């Protein structure tokens, strides 16, 4: 009897153990669009912070202009949107009027004055076309200011092209990344790893297609990248006239990264060339170096920052007159001990063939309203991103140091759980563009999964949305993003040739309002807004912290502790607890002392009485 019991028990245990290993992970159907991450790194559904309000295809609004081809750069200012139609070698300007988008013009050529013609020479010919423009930067500047800053050379007599032919391109566009520069030996402890045959990180620069290595992507594990080759860009063969649909007059200053013409062209709103930035001269640059500007910004001091292909020392800074002045914000990454050791053991030939420890290239940059540069890096190691040693997003001050605040429960790195969101993509998010809003929140665009991640000024994630797909609000291959105003985001899809307009919902506006109130010091009002947000989204930990902080200031420590606990904010919980403990101690200190006194006094009295009794008895 007893043995059968035992046997049954053992059998039961065996079966339950087996069953526990049998249960395979069931695919969950949590196909939400907007979400946040909890303290534990789990995705939590969130109400939509942005909603798609427009899906703009060039061929729909202006059939004559055809569609965008591998558009890779975009800039919004006021109601204007400039798009670099990279493979079509043109720039399209849109304007938004009453929620509708119209084409203002399509720019194929710059207007060149005689005085400036010499600077516009490419391969010995004055070339006023653009070849593979990858980025455009626009800022406000009146004509008077421009004349004061840059002189009136550009307004002179226009250059007569006559029948001067364009240089006919015979070979594919140049590519710096074929031969990465050997890092200076002295700085060997800086740099992440890039394999020596790493291509220029993505197809937007158009280097695919001409070498045999296009099949293998430089970075491993990038499933989103494969099978996504574009045709190599073709140089313009004629000087096409610009097409102007709406004649406008704006006080703008335009910078175009004319990448395959190896120059940044600076012009006024009518595309009259004011100056040209090209041929940077510096001892770190070899003679063979060819300047290929990819992304540009121009700050309030009229310095131009260029992210150039194959340049690993950071962003290139150019002064107002177009001379190269410095590198800014070189990525310093520590090489691990074993990597160093391994390198020591290798032969010279192996070392040359193997990985090189060079700082990683930036891939995009954008300027916030106070002149700080937000820059993104995508060629990073997944593990480094996860450990926080690699920073996919940086905020650079003028010294080039990273001043981004990372106080959230997770580093600003996009997706935190990588595998289960979408089966088509794996690995860390790869940021390729960033927008900084006036309230110091910022959005990052993730190429891996076609997502947009929003962070507040403390580095807390506010929400993420978007995905790979074909329906509205999903993307094929995002390339750029910019904000039309504080509540409208435009996202450019290079493969589909579309611009998707997102407009902030009530929910998103509430978050911004709460953040703003908090920043201005109106803690109570901010808590009220956070409470409203919680009604929409009970998962939102930041809201609990916001309310907790207001309660903490009001002196309701116990309540505050409850909110901080909900948000797993142990720092603030500790602050609240310190005050709460004070309160409790103050309240009960009297009882405590009385109790202690009684404990001390009573035995003494008892002893005394006993002694007395004893004496009486003995007496």
């Amino acid at each position, binding site marked *: 009897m007893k043995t059968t019991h035992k046997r049954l028990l053992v059998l039961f245990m065996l079966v339950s*153990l*087996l069953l526990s*290993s*049998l249960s395979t992970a069931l695919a969950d159907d949590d196909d939400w669009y907007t979400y946040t991450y909890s303290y*534990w790194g789990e995705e939590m559904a969130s109400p939509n912070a942005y909603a798609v309000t427009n899906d703009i295809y060039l061929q729909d609004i202006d059939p004559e202009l055809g569609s965008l081809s591998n558009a890779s750069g975009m800039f919004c200012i006021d109601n204007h949107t400039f798009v670099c139609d990279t493979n079509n070698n043109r720039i399209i300007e849109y304007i938004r009027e009453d929620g509708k988008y119209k084409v203002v013009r399509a720019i194929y050529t710059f207007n060149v004055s005689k005085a400036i013609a010499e600077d516009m020479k490419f391969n010995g010919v004055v070339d006023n076309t653009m070849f593979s423009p990858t980025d455009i930067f626009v800022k406000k500047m009146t004509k008077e200011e421009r004349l004061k800053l840059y002189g009136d050379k550009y307004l002179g007599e226009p250059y007569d092209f006559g029948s001067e032919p364009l240089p006919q391109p015979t070979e594919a566009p140049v590519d710096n990344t074929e031969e990465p520069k050997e890092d200076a030996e002295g700085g060997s402890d800086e740099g992440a790893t890039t394999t020596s045959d790493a291509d220029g990180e993505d197809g937007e620069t158009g280097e695919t297609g001409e070498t045999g290595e296009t099949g293998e992507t430089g970075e491993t594990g990038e499933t989103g990248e494969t099978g996504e080759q574009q045709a190599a860009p073709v140089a313009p063969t004629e000087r096409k006239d610009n097409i102007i649909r709406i004649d406008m007059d704006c006080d703008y200053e335009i910078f175009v990264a004319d990448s395959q013409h190896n120059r940044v062209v600076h012009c006024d709103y009518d595309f009259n060339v004011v100056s040209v930035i090209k041929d940077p001269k510096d001892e770190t640059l070899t003679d063979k170096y060819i300047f290929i500007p990819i992304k540009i910004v121009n700050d309030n001091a009229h310095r131009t920052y260029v992210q150039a292909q194959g340049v690993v020392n950071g962003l290139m800074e150019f002064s107002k007159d177009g001379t190269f002045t410095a590198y800014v914000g070189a990525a310093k990454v520590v090489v691990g001990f074993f990597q160093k050791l391994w390198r020591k053991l290798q032969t010279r030939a192996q070392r040359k063939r193997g990985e090189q420890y060079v700082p990683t290239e930036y891939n995009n940059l954008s300027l916030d309203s106070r002149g700080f540069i937000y820059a993104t890096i995508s060629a990073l190691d997944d593990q480094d991103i996860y450990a926080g040693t690699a920073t996919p997003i940086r905020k650079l001050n003028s010294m080039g140091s990273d001043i981004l605040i990372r106080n959230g429960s997770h580093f600003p790195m996009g997706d935190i759980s990588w595998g289960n969101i979408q089966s088509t993509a794996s690995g860390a998010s790869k940021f390729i563009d960033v927008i900084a809003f006036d309230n110091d929140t910022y959005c990052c665009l993730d190429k891996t999964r076609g997502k947009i991640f929003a962070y507040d000024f403390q580095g807390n994630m506010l929400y993420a949305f978007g995905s790979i797909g074909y329906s509205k609000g999903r993307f094929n291959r995002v390339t750029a993003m910019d904000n039309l105003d504080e509540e409208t985001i435009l996202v450019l899809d290079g493969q589909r040739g579309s611009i998707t307009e997102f407009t902030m919902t009530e929910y998103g506006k509430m978050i911004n309002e709460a953040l703003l109130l908090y920043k201005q010091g109106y803690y109570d009002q901010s808590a009220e807004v956070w409470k409203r947000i919680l009604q929409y989204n009970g998962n939102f930990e930041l809201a609990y912290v916001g309310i907790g902080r207001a309660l903490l200031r009001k002196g309701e420590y116990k309540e505050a502790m409850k909110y901080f*606990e909900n948000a797993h904010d*142990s*720092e603030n*919980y*500790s*602050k609240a*607890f*310190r005050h709460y*403990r004070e309160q409790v101690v103050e309240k009960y200190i009297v009882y405590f002392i009385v109790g202690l006194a009684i404990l001390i006094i009573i035995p003494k009295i008892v002893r005394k009485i006993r002694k007395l009794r004893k004496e009486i008895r003995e007496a």
Partner: protein
Amino acid sequence: MRKILSGIAQFFKGDGWSNYRKTLRYALYVILHPFDGFWDLTHEKRGSMAAAHTIVILTVLTHLWDRRFTSFMLNNTQWSKFSIVMNTLGILVPLVIWVVANWCVTTLFDGKGRMREIYMGTAYALTPYPLIGLPMIVISNMVTKEEGVFYTYFNVFALIWAGFLILCAVLMIHDYSLLGGILAVIFSIVGMAVIMFIVLLFFSLISDAVMYVVSIYKEIVFRL
């Protein structure tokens, strides 16, 4: 039933209860005088299995209470993923494997201890954990995050103390020299790894076999 009841009655009527109390109190002597204590524990029969079980149960309870009642600031428990069973097994399974592995190793290397003595010694060596851990749970609810380092220090201290006691237990129970004892501990840990590996291998093979049968069954059911 009657037998059990009378057994319990006997336990309290005779010197069972006082013996139990005495052996349990002996744990306090052991942790302060480990060499002496562990020698007498088995050789002089001053310990009992009942007391050993009590200490193990207290250890498990301390661990569970630690997870549950330690102040939020010092307690990083994800409740949605917390399982009492897993946490209990998390202590009991390594304990059992340790005892088995240590027995296997010491049997080969001339150890004097029997399995129940190894178990008893190990259990007595765990005493510092509940002894320090339980007050620390209470104290953790009275400190802020900065003061919480003391909580961590004391708990780490308890673990180091327990580890040292386990080593002493191995030395005394098996009558080893210091070097031999350390070697025995190391080999026991290796043995634990081997046992776990074999168990995992066994279960994964069995589950594969079962899966095979299940899938065949399913296939047949679908075809019919």
